[in-house]
């Protein structure tokens, strides 16, 4: 039986956060199964044993039995109190981040996860962490509710606009684990995936060093990195294929029809406006689902992005 319940759970890759949960999962399953077998057996046994023989069957009058009533109220009550205590202590552990935890900032937005590290390194949909060290992910949302869920670590927390939330875990083996968004957030909710990549500690330091220092290069190169990091390509293709938003291919100086029937030629000002306030001039045939970037990108960054977009033909 234990093997069935093991099969039901994903691999446990963060024992410090997952062990208590898994233990309780097994315990509740086992107790439930005992009760369910008892109930099912009683149902089937009674159905055969007391099958109606004739319409004149006489049945005894058994109105109640206090001893029985108390027994089957108190025993389940005791069991669920154990379950409550066990679940509570496991949950306290999930809330209590170890003091030496390594902090990573995460931002969720439709439909990407952005991760920021202490030295300015940024990643899109890839959470790089060292093995064997507690990690605290501090999360915020740019638009609607999201939820950050790593099944392998048994951690999950909603990502709420206007407040910070966090999860912590400690991966004990190198490799990859999937991150799901588990709070419905629109069209591509089910594609808002990311992965945790667990490195050996030295390897992680190297990776961090290599990616630190932020965005560099010519304006076009910087613009390309920004577009990649901001996850623009989740909705806007660079090869002309149809996605949730208009393609970037050949966008410069293109004449666009808008939802209100008017037309606009794509120039610097249109791109700037569409990044900062995407809802103002929506291209016909598309919906207004993009999160506004007002206050999130600097003027220089927007200029670099425009320079990059000019080059996509």
């Amino acid at each position, binding site marked *: 039986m234990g093997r069935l319940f093991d099969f*039901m*759970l994903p691999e446990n890759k963060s024992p410090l956060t997952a062990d208590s*949960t898994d233990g*309780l*999962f097994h315990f*509740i*399953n086992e107790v*439930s199964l005992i*009760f*369910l077998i008892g109930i099912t057996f*009683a*149902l089937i046994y*009674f*159905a055969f044993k*007391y099958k109606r023989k004739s319409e004149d*069957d*006489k*049945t*005894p009058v*058994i*109105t*109640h*039995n206090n001893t*029985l*009533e108390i027994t*089957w*109220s108190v025993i*389940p009550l005791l069991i*669920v109190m154990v379950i*409550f205590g066990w*679940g*509570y202590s*496991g*949950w306290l*552990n999930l809330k209590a981040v170890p003091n030496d935890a390594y902090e990573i900032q995460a931002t969720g937005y439709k439909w990407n996860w952005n991760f920021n590290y202490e030295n300015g390194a940024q990643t899109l949909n890839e959470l790089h962490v060292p093995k064997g060290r507690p990690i605290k992910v501090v999360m915020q949302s740019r*638009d*609607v*509710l999201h*939820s950050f*869920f790593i*099944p*392998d670590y*048994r*951690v*999950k927390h*909603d990502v*709420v*606009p*206007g*407040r910070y*939330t966090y999860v912590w875990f400690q991966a004990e083996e190198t490799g990859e684990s*999937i991150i799901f*968004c*588990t*709070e*419905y957030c*629109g*069209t591509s*909710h*089910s594609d808002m995936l990311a992965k945790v990549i667990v490195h050996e500690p030295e390897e992680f330091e190297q990776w961090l060093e290599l990616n630190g220092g932020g965005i560099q290069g010519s304006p076009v190169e910087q613009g390309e990195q920004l577009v990649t990091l901001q996850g623009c390509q989740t909705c806007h293709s660079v090869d002309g294929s149809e996605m949730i938003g208009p393609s970037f291919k050949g966008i410069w100086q293109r004449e666009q029809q808008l939802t209100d029937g008017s037309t606009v030629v794509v120039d610097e000002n249109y791109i700037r406006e569409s990044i900062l306030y995407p809802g103002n001039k929506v291209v016909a045939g598309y919906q207004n689902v993009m999160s506004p970037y007002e206050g999130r990108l600097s003027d220089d960054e927007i200029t670099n992005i425009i320079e990059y977009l000019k080059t996509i033909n």
Partner: protein
Amino acid sequence: MAITEAKKMTTLQVKRFKPSENPTNNYLTDEKGVWAWMTTVDHKKIGIMYLVAVAFFFALAGFLAIALRTELWTPAKTFIEADTYNQLFTLHGAMMVFFVLVPSIPAALGNFILPMQLGAKDVAFPRLNLASLYIYVAGAIFTFAALASGGFDTGWTFYTPYSSDGNGAGVIWVTLGVFILGFSSILTGTNFITTIHKLRAPGITWDRLPLNIWALYATSIIQVLATPVLAITILLLAFENIMDIGIFDPALGGDPVLFQHFFWFYSHPAVYIMIVPGFGIISEVISTFSKKTVFGYWAIALSSLAIAFIGFLVWGHHMFTSGQSAVATTVFSFLTFLVGIPTGIKIFNWIATLYKGSIDMKTPMLYVFIFLFLFSIGGFTGIMLGALSVDIHLHDTYYVVAHFHYVMMGGTLMALLAGLHYWWPKMTGKMYNETLAKISAVLIFIGFNMTFLPQFVMGSQGMPRRYYNYIDQFTPFHQTSTIGSYILGVAFLIILYYLVKSLFGGEKASSNPWNSRGLEWQSTSPPDFHNFDHTPVVINGPYDYHKPMEEFQLGLAVSHNGHDAEHTSTEVEKTEEKA
């Protein structure tokens, strides 16, 4: 109290009579024509109209479920786009909850049966009853208007800020629809509470109230107390949407978690609005088909009330990952376990009722057995989700989806099917095909488990809910689930077939085909317009199966409904002295 009650009974002079078989006149023949139905104040006709409406929405939302399961046959696109999928699951959930589960048992079966079990001619406010039906229809029209104006894809929970973020005019229409629908629910609840208090026939003391009535009583209390909160919440949401007043949307200075508190303050008790009336049906059917007094009458009756009250205090268990305060989370988890106890007590009492009974496995009883198995699984997995640390892992995965389908479909819907088959002869005067009914019940059992058991496994493995696309490892589970849903679809079509067929060619039902001791079976099938020829005097309890059937004839007060024993006429045949 008991002594004065007994005194009154001993001086009560009644004569007994049997209901006539195959009446020439009944509520269906009484007023004919569309206009007569539309303006009727007869609780039975209103119940039937509710039943038709609920069946319509169930068919529609069930069809959507089949479409959703078909889409999930493969990861990514099978035959519809992501946006369509998102709208369909929202519609499936909203319709099943607001248009099917909430009104199904109270407004459809309850309307028909409640006054009959009380020996009343109608509910206390018959016109209000008709009004609640029209309000329900108005709510439905608004929902269809929402579809016409571009649809909505927020999920049936309408979580902010997604729902207030300009996701189409559809959201405003559908929330107004739900707002209107709530009044229908409140009016039905008010009507039932009044009817139970004021219109019980002479002899129906509180300790002789059928357990179905206790369950509807508990349900009505929740409907009256909880539904207004939903109305207020939805009104605030509409204000925010239309006038940009910041209540829930952080961009306007609001708090999205506040919305979740408001929403679940209604929607958790609403779960009990959906399931508690089902408990009532189970008690009636299990007693009738095991021909035995219900074990633990008071335990079952009072546990319904306990569930109704504790059910108000557990809403936060939907929000363990939301960021609500740690203290709140702890308290909500604790109370959640407490609400499980009265539910468990009921299951044990029902099983104890079977002990030494005379069990006849007719279709309604078969559904009760299916209910007890499926609902137990629903309950145990509820304990799993109530445990804080485990819920963190399972929240918003398919485990939750499977859990609430085991409770709502394995619980409420199986109880509804039990009740529908049980009272079908009374409501229509016709018998359905027993063989087909049993075949479809078995198909439902197989199809249901095939659909939802795999969802427990993939949920535990991490498959999130409301996913259009999924990772490959979940494919076998999704495909098993989809096949199961097709079996369910076929089973429901068979039910539709034999029920409709019974209306036109079915065998005529006798007034009491199951030899039940319930008061509603002491009238003709179908009942007369006023249910009983005279206000009945109830001599025996609804579960007195130890008494011979002959004793179960209606007592008829000779004058003044039995309240005025001095002025009895001389027509008395027999004086009843049982208390």
